[in-house]
């Protein structure tokens, strides 16, 4: 395929993905808006006013970056895992398999679809947070790049999960038993400096901690971790997941007999 044809094919997948989550907006865009508003009211306003400061900031200010990042993570992952599994389940993945689109374009299309929803929901949550706090961006480049990289990483994770999934149960196991606990323990609601030394060490093994803290650094200028290390780690993990996803597509795992 020529470069222009490749771009048309890529853009077709992206538009199809965006059309999908926009069509079912009460399932995709509305729930995170409601959930995050409740977090802002309950944890930020009601409980937060009694907690006082965290990391030198008002508690509401401290948790807003974490909650935005939580939305980006869960929605990027959730979009790709449910969309690609649905594509497999309804067998319209065959539309892609019979076409001449290279695997890297298929993968990129789904990942960008996941990023579109992750970043879109992140923006909705950011706008909602403005009703509760003033949001100043300390470092725009860090803020934007960490959101995009996190979204890409979890979109790839969702894609791999969808490839291995054989039932609808299989696409909810990772979000429920892995993503949610790691996100809650990833410094969304607290600074790990509050933890005993041993648990601080354990927390450093949680990759989501690096994403949340790098984003918090972009917004507030404070972080529990080394930003350069966080970016390097993310780049490396994205490269590994992208290569592994391509390998699975090439092999036809779960999609070809």
């Amino acid at each position, binding site marked *: *395929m*020529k470069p*222009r*044809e*490749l771009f*048309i*094919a890529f*853009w*077709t*997948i992206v*538009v*199809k993905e965006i*059309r999908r989550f926009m*069509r079912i907006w009460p399932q995709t865009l509305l729930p995170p808006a409601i959930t995050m508003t409740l977090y802002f009211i309950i944890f930020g306003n009601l409980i937060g006013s009694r907690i006082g400061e965290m990391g030198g900031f008002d508690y509401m200010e401290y948790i807003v970056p974490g909650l935005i990042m939580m939305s980006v993570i869960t929605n990027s992952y959730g979009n790709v895992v449910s969309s690609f599994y649905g*594509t497999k389940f*309804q*067998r*319209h993945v*065959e*539309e*892609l*398999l*019979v*076409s*001449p*689109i*290279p695997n890297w374009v298929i993968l990129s299309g789904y990942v960008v679809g996941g990023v579109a929803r992750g970043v879109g929901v992140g923006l909705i949550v950011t706008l909602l947070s403005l009703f509760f706090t003033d949001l100043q961006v300390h470092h725009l480049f860090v803020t934007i790049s960490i959101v995009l990289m996190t979204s890409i990483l979890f979109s790839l994770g969702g894609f791999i999960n969808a490839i291995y999934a054989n039932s609808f149960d299989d696409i909810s196991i990772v979000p429920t038993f892995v993503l949610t606990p790691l996100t809650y323990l990833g410094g969304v609601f607290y600074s790990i400096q509050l933890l005993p030394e041993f648990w601080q060490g354990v927390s450093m093994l949680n990759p989501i901690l690096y994403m949340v803290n790098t984003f918090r650094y972009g917004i507030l200028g404070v972080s529990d971790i080394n930003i350069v290390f966080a970016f390097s780690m993310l780049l490396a993990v994205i490269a590994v997941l992208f290569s592994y996803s391509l390998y699975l597509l090439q092999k*036809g795992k779960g999609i*070809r*007999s």
Partner: protein
Amino acid sequence: MTAALSIRNLRKTYGNGFEALKGISLEVQQGDFFALLGPNGAGKSTTLGIVSSLVNKSSGDVEVFGHSLDTAHAQAKMCLGVVPQEFNFNQFEKVMDIVTTQAGYYGIPPRLARERAEYYLKKLGLWDKRNQVSRMLSGGMKRRLMIARALVHEPRVLILDEPTAGVDIELRRSMWAFLQEINRAGTTIILTTHYLEEAESLCRNIAIIDHGRIVKDTSVKALLQQLNTETFILDINPPQAALPALNGYQARLEDDHTLVVDVEKTQGLSRLFSELSSQRIEVQSMRNKANRLEELFVSLVDKNLTDEKNA
């Protein structure tokens, strides 16, 4: 002339050890209307699945218009349009979106995609349904939608896996007419079917596959010539209570006014009419049995089964 489809020594063994294809070779010429026949589980869908890139082959070579599926898969896929047996489109998408999205996968710009979608949806009687969600369509409409989707990039070869399964007679006839029209316009058509009447009336060439092997690969005409006997059904008058004596002919009475006669190639019909006439039996109408191909198919498949058992 390059073959539209060339398959050489194709083998497929599934993960559970089942050997679906045992080294089949096949050529379909450009412009052909070709049928791949075989009983359930013979390997038809596996063969078409490998050609369509939906099934991984174990070994062998497949070329579409000279483009290898291994080394030039994009060019090969550009030449192929595939209509599967099962509905495999997004049930929540609109008809128009399904067709234009498929066009996009082939790198067709949106405006041209819409023009082509309009043309094929009109051709297949689905234009009125273009904004309808696909799951609301009837079974026949869904099947036509898959044909429109497969044609939107104007492939040189159209593969149809049992296109008329579960389709009523009227729609089946209109689909046959449409397929013949695009075949006349130059599209090579390869289909699998269980309706042997369909293969007999549409196809010029035929391959019969059984237990993962090609047991016959010839023209429909040549295949039918292999029939030594042809069966005729005669409406006779007056009604006969007993079978008339027909010297040398195998015959039976279906009912008192329907006589079924097996006529060997060497016998001809003139003597049959003379014999009936001498017994004052009038032939009011006559037709030959439509499932001639079916008889051959059954005999070939039975023979293959016997050969396999003896091997």
